[in-house]
């Protein structure tokens, strides 16, 4: 009997105008998005290899250790997943003078957008009258008079609805994937298939939530005209409002000090203040040394000092003591100011992290945010990937500064002992280049467990609520 009911649900959906319209729009949007994002990806890839070639050219001619840090930077090559999901990889670049603010005004369209906005809307459109519509048509009465249990009906409605939603989504996504994979420039790695599978699973959950919301609201209303109003109201709040409010809410609840102020403070601490402190300490330690070696009190010219250091061993010890005292003063000044700076930046970082995680937690009340975090983290385009890139970069830096730099400098010194080690151009084409690798799939799965859990929780609660509401539904 269950099977008959499910088939009936599917058949009524598939034959309806709304199903056809949904399918067409989904198919077109997914295909267009996939092809636009793919050509975008290919262009970025071409640009990336061109940039690498330019860096290579630079390394061969002008590389020098003083400013090499400005040339070798952590850059992420375009990854194949960006043909589907852009995540945080849009280049807005507010930290540099030249930025690209278009994505701020018009966020990019990608699979995340299609699932979170379009497919959830389709889910509501298919489900808002699934109970009250049948009541209005009078078929619900007939069904119940046939001795069917209500729980069977609600289960069949959910199953049938889920199938009619998922099949067009999967067909459209396959078409999109076909467009992507037919491009010879795209090498879709095997691990990304696993990630894509999990994203599709997440999309199932996400869509189920909205189908269940429609089912629940439909079982709470007597007319489908008011059911669509309530459904859209809930949809607007969950999808369009709650996630957008979350970072602002968290910035009031957990404020951070002004970044610009901290940056300036840091510069002052390690520049002007450090010099002042250094000079003060220097004067203090000098006077102590002078007390010990009165010979130093005499004001001598630089040449005179050099001569006396060479000729007078006693003066030499005094002079060395003086140099040591000066060094000690500046080391101390550096240490004190660095400690102050570190305290300041650590405090800022801690507060910013607290704010970010609060914003994330608030936004996770919305299934949209859950799906967005899940999809971006699985596709290596989210916050997790930013941290991963940072780790890779640290590993590279340690190789560069620990192994490469001393080796190269030693070579340079051997060739010419008087060379300026920092500002002499040398051929650095053999430098170990920074190489980005995507995080392994296993590591990507861990951060998505909380959003998955929230979505699963939503599904269970909504299903229970829809069930209870339908049991108590007045079919007259």
């Amino acid at each position, binding site marked *: 009997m269950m099977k008959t009911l499910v088939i009936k649900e599917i058949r009524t959906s598939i034959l309806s105008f*709304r199903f056809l319209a949904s399918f067409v729009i989904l198919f077109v949007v997914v295909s267009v998005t996939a092809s636009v994002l793919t050509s975008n990806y290919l262009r970025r890839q071409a640009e990336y290899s061109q940039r690498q070639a330019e860096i290579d050219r630079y390394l061969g001619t002008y590389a020098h250790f003083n400013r090499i840090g400005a040339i070798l930077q952590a850059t992420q090559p375009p990854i194949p997943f960006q043909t589907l999901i852009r995540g945080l990889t849009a280049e807005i670049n*507010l930290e540099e003078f030249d930025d690209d603010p*278009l994505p701020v005004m018009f966020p990019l369209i990608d699979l995340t957008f299609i699932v979170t906005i379009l497919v959830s809307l389709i889910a509501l459109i298919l489900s808002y009258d699934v109970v009250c519509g049948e009541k209005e048509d009078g078929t619900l009465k007939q069904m119940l008079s046939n001795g069917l249990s209500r729980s069977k009906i609600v289960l069949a409605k959910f199953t049938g609805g889920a199938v009619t939603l998922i099949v067009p989504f999967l067909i459209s996504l396959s078409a999109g994937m076909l467009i992507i994979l037919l491009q010879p420039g795209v090498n879709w790695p095997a691990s990304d298939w696993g990630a894509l599978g999990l994203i599709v699973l997440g999309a199932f959950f996400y869509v189920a939530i909205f189908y269940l919301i429609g089912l629940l609201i439909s079982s709470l209303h007597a007319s489908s005209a008011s059911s669509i109003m309530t459904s859209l109201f809930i949809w607007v709040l969950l999808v369009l409002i709650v996630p957008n409010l979350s970072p602002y809410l968290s910035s009031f609840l957990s404020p951070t000090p002004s*970044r*610009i102020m901290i940056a300036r403070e840091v510069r002052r601490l390690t520049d002007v203040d450090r010099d002042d402190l250094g000079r003060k300490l220097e004067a203090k330690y000098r006077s102590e040394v002078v007390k010990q070696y009165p010979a130093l009190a005499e004001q001598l010219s630089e040449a005179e000092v050099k001569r006396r250091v060479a000729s007078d061993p006693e003066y030499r010890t005094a002079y060395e003591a003086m140099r040591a005292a000066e060094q000690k003063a500046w080391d101390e000044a550096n240490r004190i100011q660095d400690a102050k700076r570190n305290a300041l930046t650590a405090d800022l970082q801690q507060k910013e992290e607290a704010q970010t995680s609060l914003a994330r937690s608030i936004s996770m009340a919305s299934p949209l945010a859950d799906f967005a975090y899940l999809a971006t983290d699985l596709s290596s385009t989210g916050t997790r990937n930013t941290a991963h890139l940072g780790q890779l970069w640290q590993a590279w830096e340690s190789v560069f500064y620990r192994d490469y730099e001393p080796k190269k400098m030693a070579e340079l010194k051997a060739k010419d002992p008087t060379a300026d080690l920092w500002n002499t151009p040398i051929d650095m084409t053999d430098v170990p280049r920074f190489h980005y690798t995507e995080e392994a799939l296993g590591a990507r799965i861990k951060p998505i467990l909380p959003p998955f859990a929230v979505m699963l929780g939503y599904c269970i609660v909504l299903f229970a609520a829809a069930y209870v509401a339908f049991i108590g539904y007045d079919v007259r």
Partner: protein
Amino acid sequence: MTWTIARKEIASNLLSYKFFIVLLLMVLLVATSLFIMYRDFDQSIADYQIIRPKPGEPIALVAPNPLSIFAKGLENAITRSFEISVIRIDVRTGQASGNVIYSFFTAPDFLYVVRVVLSLVALLFGFDQVSREREQGTLKLLLGSSVSRAKVLAGKWIGNFLSLAVPFFFVTLLGTAVLLLDPVVHFSAGQFARLGLILVLSLFYLGFFLSLGMLVSALTRRAATSIIILLFVWAVFVFIIPNLGTLAARQFVSVPSVRALTEKQEQTWTREVLLGISKGGNWAEHMQALSREEDQMEQDYRLKFERLVRLSRDINRISPAASFLDASSEIAGTGIGEEIRLKSEIVRYKDSIIDQIIANLSTGKRNVEYPAFVDRPRSLAEIFASGALFDTVWLIFLNILLFALAYVSFIRYDVR
């Protein structure tokens, strides 16, 4: 007669569940959005007081714009601190860059509420105007009393527009009045005028969606079909066209990524500093040449970027949502055009500072005070001339067009 129908529409709206939900949504969202963005503005004003440059510091910093409460736009990019040092502009970003969640979601400002949510609301007012009355049979009665169809349609439009616009206006004005209680939020007369313009644009925009709703309603037999078509059309207009349009524009205008540009500038800078050291000698000249070369690169990028912006605007204009967003954010002074203008002004400021540094080097003066950066935002006339007027006229035209189409399809509508 038109007015009687309008009154009837208002009366029936007032009693409906739809109106209750819509009013709730409107009040809730406009109030929340204004409050949240006001707090955000308050915070940025507090920050600004701390970080504003002392006299003589070569720092370009624009004060937060109170209209950003309504139209956040690129306010975060505009209020960055641009600190001019010997050969470059050090850019420091404010709070928002410390919390990555900001970049996941669009700012929930007034424009967002109008553009995304209230457009949906306007559709809900229009979607069943014709088809529902047919289903209920009242349309037959109405036309049976020999009222012209034009008058019926006009009455319906006016009645529904008023039921939408009056609460909207009321909530917005009330919200704005509450904002003004805080002395931190200070609007000049010009800014009030700009706010008024944004409100008028909002009404045009909402009018468009109301007409669209009525058009589709007059084209379909059943209200259930009409709502489904409208929801998809809404998603296409509000989300898909503007967001896909900017991506599509990139296919035609080749703009290097900002990353590529930064890398190139770093390479030039380090190369020139190296050559300067090895050559020794005239630093001043070298510095100036370097500054000019970076300017050239910057300008090159900006020209391409402006072309991209123009093209993506032209593509996006198919959607009134993009037209509305562009025009309103430019009027508020937080749009893309404003950011581009500010940056070219900062480049000019940097050049003047560098000229001064060089002059001081030759005369041996030290610890000089530099002139402060003066920001001259564009006047309304300039903003209108550079596109906002076109967008406004376009919105009005779309309104008229859709109403005319709705009229034509209503005349041919089979009321049985």
